[in-house]
């Protein structure tokens, strides 16, 4: 019995010394939003981002073009088409203490136009925006759940 307890404790010490770089399945939500100054409205589906969009940008209209949830397995890229000729590729590269590390590439006609790595925790949103789309611009809203 004593040996069992001792072994158990030794294993605990070992794990407490190692960095906790475990990988888990991460659900990531990608919303493609068109922001413009044509009209005055916000899509009801963007209600949870209403305050943030209003405080960060001066656009008067936000329209949801696409809403996708992707489940990311470690080191397996997942790709979502966002709008004409554009796509976003997300890969989970790490998971540490309730934070998912995601590599995000935005591609246009097969070429990378943005390559970034972000740390997402539940409740945090990353907005990637700026490229023109029609009368406004496109904003991608990324959030994660795990």
């Amino acid at each position, binding site marked *: 019995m004593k040996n069992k307890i001792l072994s158990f404790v030794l294993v605990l010490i070992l794990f407490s010394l190692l960095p906790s770089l475990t990988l888990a399945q991460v659900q990531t939500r990608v919303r493609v939003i068109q922001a413009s100054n044509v009209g005055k409205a916000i899509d009801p589906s963007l209600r949870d981002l209403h305050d943030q969009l209003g405080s*960060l940008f001066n656009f008067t209209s936000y329209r949801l073009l696409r809403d996708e949830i992707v489940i990311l397995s470690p080191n397996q890229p997942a790709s979502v088409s966002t709008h004409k000729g554009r796509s976003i590729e997300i890969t989970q590269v790490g998971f540490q203490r309730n934070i998912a590390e995601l590599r995000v590439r935005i591609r246009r006609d097969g070429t990378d136009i943005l390559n970034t790595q972000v740390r997402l925790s539940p409740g945090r949103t*990353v*907005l990637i925006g700026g490229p023109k789309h029609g009368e406004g611009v496109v904003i991608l809203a990324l959030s994660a759940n795990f």
Partner: protein
Amino acid sequence: MKDSCSSISQLLERYFDRQATDEERSLVERHLPICQTCHERLTLLEELRKAIKAPVDEALKEETFPWVWEKIERGIRLGKKPSWQESVRSWLDLSPLLRKKVWIPAVATAIVLALVASPLLFKKTPSLSAPSVVEYVESQTYNVMVYEAEKAKVTVIWLFEEMEGESTTS
């Protein structure tokens, strides 16, 4: 029961809701072909039901309930927190050890573990806000700006149209 319009119209809603008796149903069905008013009333009830029901059916057909169960679990978790004493007690479950007289080495080992682990815990305080959300960002096509609004828990990566001859890496 008299087969007149006024008595039939009282049965119409029960008939429409399929709650009429067999006798009432046959009375109504005999009456409808010969009474435009009652027929129109029935049509109106159908239109009303369609206006109320169809959008609900449509919404449910397309609904995938994303993350709903996960949010319910989280809501339950946030609403119910056992005291730390209860958590530690259930995790340790000390009573069998006490009976078996091995608690002395177990306690000693726990103290050693705490002494070894505490410098590590204090060294690396977990904090969601301390490390930057964006580890790196690069673009050959756009100028890039990163803005972190800590209070709003939002990070913005904004891409500006490239000036000629420039490329950006950060």
